[in-house]
C-alpha cells in the first residue's frame, strides 16, 4: 500500500510537534485549558491528564541565552538542564499553569532545588511547581515510598484545580496514555527498518508534547504504511538523552543511521501498558517499568546494547555524553564488552551538538574512547 496523504499529513504533524514543542500547548491554552509543564523522563503523566491538563515535557532550545540560568545553576550541571531553566526564566511560549519535576537524574533535582530557592527568596517570577520524588531501587520500601509520592501529587493536582481526581478520570487518563504506549511500541519495533534515527526521535518527542490520544492516532496513522529506510551505516546510540533531533541530524548527515537508542527520550520510551488504572498500579509501573537511564544497572544497559545491536543490525555502538552528564561513562566498558561491534565513547559534548571527529575510529578499530 502506498503512503497516502493522511500518512504524510500524520508524519508532518509529528514533525511539527517536535519542531515547535509548544504548538499543542498554545492550542490548549487558547481553548482555556490548563497546561502543565514537566521535567523528568519518569513523570507520571497520567495524573496530569486526569486533572484535565495537557502534560508537556519541557525541551531545551540550543542557542538560548543561558547566562542568567547558569549563574543560579552553577557547577557541573548538564547544559540541557541549564537550558530548561533559561526557558523558565524567560518564557517564550504560553505561561505554564503548573510545573512538575521528578528525580530522574541529578540535574533535575538540582533544577528543582534551584527553583525552590528562587521562589523562597523571591528572586524570579516562576510558575507554581511540584516535585515528585519517584525512586527506582527494586526494594519494596521504594515502591511504598513512590505510592505515597504519587498520592501526594494526585492530591496536589486536585487542590490546584479545585476538585479531587476521580477514579474514572484516572482510568480514562491511563487508557489514553496506554494507547500512546502501544503506538510507541510499534514505532520501536519498526524504526530500524523504516525510519531515519532523527525521524524516530522526532516521533518519540512528539509524544511528550501532544495530547496522548491524538498522539496515538497520529503516530499510528504515520506508521500505517511501511517506510523505506534512508541510507547510512546502522548505529546504536547510548548515553545522554536528546530532546531535539540536532545530534541525530548531524550523525545521519555524516553517513550514519541511528537504528536504536537506549536513552530516556528514545527507545526507552517503549513501556508496557499500565495494567491497573489506580495509584497502586501507577506506583508499580513507575517504580519497576519506567526506569530512567540512571536507575538501570550497567549489566542491564550492557544487555540492552547487545540486544539493540542485534535487533537493529547495528554495525557500530556509540555512547554520547554531554558535558556534565557523565554517569553513563561508568557503564560504557560493560556495554562495549557486550556489543559485538566497534564501539566509541564521546564525552564532554556540547548541548545539541556532536563533535564527530572521533567517530572515524568506528570504521576499523574494535573499540576506542574519544573526548572532544
Amino acid at each position: 500500500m502506498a503512503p497516502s496523504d493522511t500518512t504524510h499529513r500524520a508524519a508532518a504533524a509529528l514533525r511539527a510537534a517536535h519542531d515547535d514543542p509548544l504548538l499543542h500547548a498554545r492550542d490548549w491554552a487558547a481553548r482555556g485549558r490548563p497546561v502543565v509543564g514537566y521535567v523528568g523522563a519518569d513523570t507520571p503523566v497520567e495524573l496530569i491528564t486526569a486533572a484535565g491538563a495537557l502534560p508537556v515535557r519541557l525541551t531545551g532550545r540550543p542557542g538560548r541565552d543561558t547566562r542568567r540560568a547558569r549563574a543560579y545553576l552553577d557547577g557541573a550541571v548538564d547544559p540541557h538542564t541549564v537550558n530548561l531553566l533559561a526557558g523558565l526564566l524567560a518564557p517564550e511560549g504560553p505561561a505554564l499553569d503548573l510545573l512538575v519535576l521528578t528525580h530522574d537524574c541529578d540535574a533535575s533535582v538540582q533544577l528543582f532545588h534551584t527553583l525552590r530557592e528562587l521562589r523562597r527568596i523571591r528572586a524570579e517570577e516562576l510558575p507554581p511547581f511540584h516535585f515528585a520524588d519517584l525512586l527506582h531501587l527494586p526494594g519494596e520500601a521504594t515502591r511504598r515510598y513512590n505510592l505515597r509520592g504519587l498520592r501526594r501529587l494526585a492530591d496536589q493536582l486536585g487542590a490546584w484545580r479545585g476538585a479531587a481526581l476521580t477514579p474514572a478520570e484516572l482510568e480514562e487518563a491511563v487508557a489514553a496514555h496506554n494507547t500512546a504506549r502501544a503506538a510507541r511500541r510499534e514505532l520501536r519495533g519498526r524504526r530500524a527498518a523504516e525510519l531515519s534515527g532523527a525521524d524516530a526521535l522526532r516521533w518519540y518527542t512528539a509524544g511528550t508534547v501532544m495530547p496522548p490520544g491524538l498522539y496515538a492516532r497520529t503516530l499510528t496513522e504515520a506508521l500505517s504504511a511501511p517506510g523505506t529506510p534512508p541510507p547510512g551505516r546502522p548505529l546504536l546510540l547510548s548515553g545522554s538523552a536528546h530532546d531535539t533531533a540536532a545530534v541525530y541530524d548531524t550523525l545521519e548527515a555524516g553517513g550514519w543511521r541511528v537504528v536504536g537508542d537506549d536513552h530516556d527520550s528514545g527507545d526507552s520510551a517503549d513501556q508496557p501498558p499500565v495494567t491497573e488504572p489506580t495509584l497502586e498500579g501507577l506506583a508499580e509501573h513507575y517504580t519497576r517499568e519506567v526506569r530512567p537511564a540512571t536507575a538501570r544497572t550497567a549489566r542491564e544497559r550492557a544487555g540492552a546494547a547487545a540486544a539493540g545491536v542485534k535487533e537493529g543490525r547495528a554495525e557500530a555502538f556509540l555512547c554520547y555524553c554531554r558535558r556534565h552528564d557523565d554517569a553513563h561513562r561508568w557503564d560504557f566498558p560493560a556495554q562495549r564488552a557486550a556489543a559485538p561491534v566497534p564501539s566509541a565513547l564521546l564525552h564532554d559534548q556540547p548541548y545539541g551538538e556532536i563533535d564527530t571527529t572521533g567517530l572515524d575510529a568506528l570504521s576499523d578499530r574494535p573499540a576506542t574512547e574519544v573526548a572532544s
Partner: protein
Amino acid sequence: MTGRQRLAAAGAALSHQREWFAGTRAEAERGRPLALVNADAPQEIFRAMDVPYVVNQWWASIISAKRMSGRYLEALRGRGLPDDIEQYSALPLAEALAPRADDAPWGGLPRPSLVLAECTGDSMRRMFGLWESELGVPFLPLESAVAENVPTEWWTLMRHDWESAVGPARIDLLEQELRALVPRLEELTGAAYDPDRLAEVMALSNEQAEWNRRTRDLLARAPRCPVPVNDVIPAVMIPQWHRGTRWATSAAENLYREVSALVEKDHAVVEDERRRLMWIGRGLWFDMNFYRSFEESHGAVFVWSMYLALAADAYARYGEDPLRALAARFCAFRDQMYTPPWSVEWYVKEAKEHRVDGVVHLISPDSRSSWFTTHALEAAGVPVLEIRADNADGRSLDPSALHRQVADWIRALP
C-alpha cells in the same frame, strides 16, 4: 599568649586511627568480615552488629595523602572507566582494581566483604556497582530521597523534632530499607543485629555530638580564636568515623576540655586578632598552611570549620526507636550541607555566631547552589570573596595569586 603546638586531641586521634586500622586490617586478613561504607551512610548499623567498617572517603583521603591517587586512577582508565568524575569517592575502588603492590598506603585496604552506599547523584550507584560486577563484592544500595518542602531552621529541630524537620516519608523509606538490610547483612557477615546495641550506639553518638556542639559553641564565643582550624579537623573527623564507641565519645570530650582550657588561659592563635574569617567550599587540601598565612601579616584567622560545625549540628537524633532515629540521621544528611534553604541559612547562622568579618567561598565544579550561598551571606551583611577553581588539587590555582587575592580582600574589608 600565642603558640603553634598541635592539639593533643588531634595527635591522639591520628595515632588511634593508625592503630585501629592495623588491627582491623590484620583481622580482615584472617578472614573477619569487613564493610566499606560511604561517608553519608548509616554506619551505626555495622557498629551495632560489631562488624568493622572502613569509611570510603576516609580511606580515599589516606590514598591521596600517600600520593597514590594517580597510579590507582590509572587502573580505572585502563578499564575504560572514567578517572575524572567523583575521583575522590572512586579511589578505594581504583585501588582494588589496581595491581597489588608493596607500597599500598598503610598496607592497603583488605578486600571488603560488602560495600554500602546511598545512590546520591548519578554516579554513586554505578561506581559502587562496579565493586560487585568487577570484583564480586556485594553492593547494598540505599535510596537518596529528596523532599519537596523542608522547614528552614533545621539545626534547631533535628535533635528532637526530626520527624517534622525531615518529614515522615523519607524517614519511613530509610527505616524500611534498613529493616530489609539487616537480614542481608547478617547473612553476608555472619554477625547478629541487636536493637539494644543500636540504642547504646545511638546514645553514645548523641553524646559525642553534644561534646562537639559545646566545642563549636566555645570556639564561636571565645573572644579570640584559641586554636587553628586545621588542627580541629582531624580531632573531630577521626572520632566521627568511630561514632558509637566509648573511645569516640571520650575523644570528643577531650577535645572540648582541651579547647576549653585554652580559652580559659586566653590563648589566641593571633595575639592581635583583627579579622575573623570563614572558609566555605572544598578545603585546600594541597595547602593547609594557606589558612594560617594571614595571621601574622593581617591579624586574620580562619575560625570556622565545616567539619566541626556539622559534627555539632548534623548528627544528634534523640528518640525512643533507635533504628528510626538512625534513619532520621541519614535520610536528609546531605541536605544539611548542600541543599538550600538548609545549607545557605545554616552558613549565615554560623557566620553570625562566629562573628566573622568575611567569608572566602571556594566554588568548584561540584559546588552546589553557590549563587544562593553568596547571595544569602551578602544579604545578611557578610562580605564574600568568591574564588573559582576547577579542582581542589591545586592544578587550577596559582597559590601566590590566590594568596594575593585573599590578602587584598582582607585589607579592603570594612
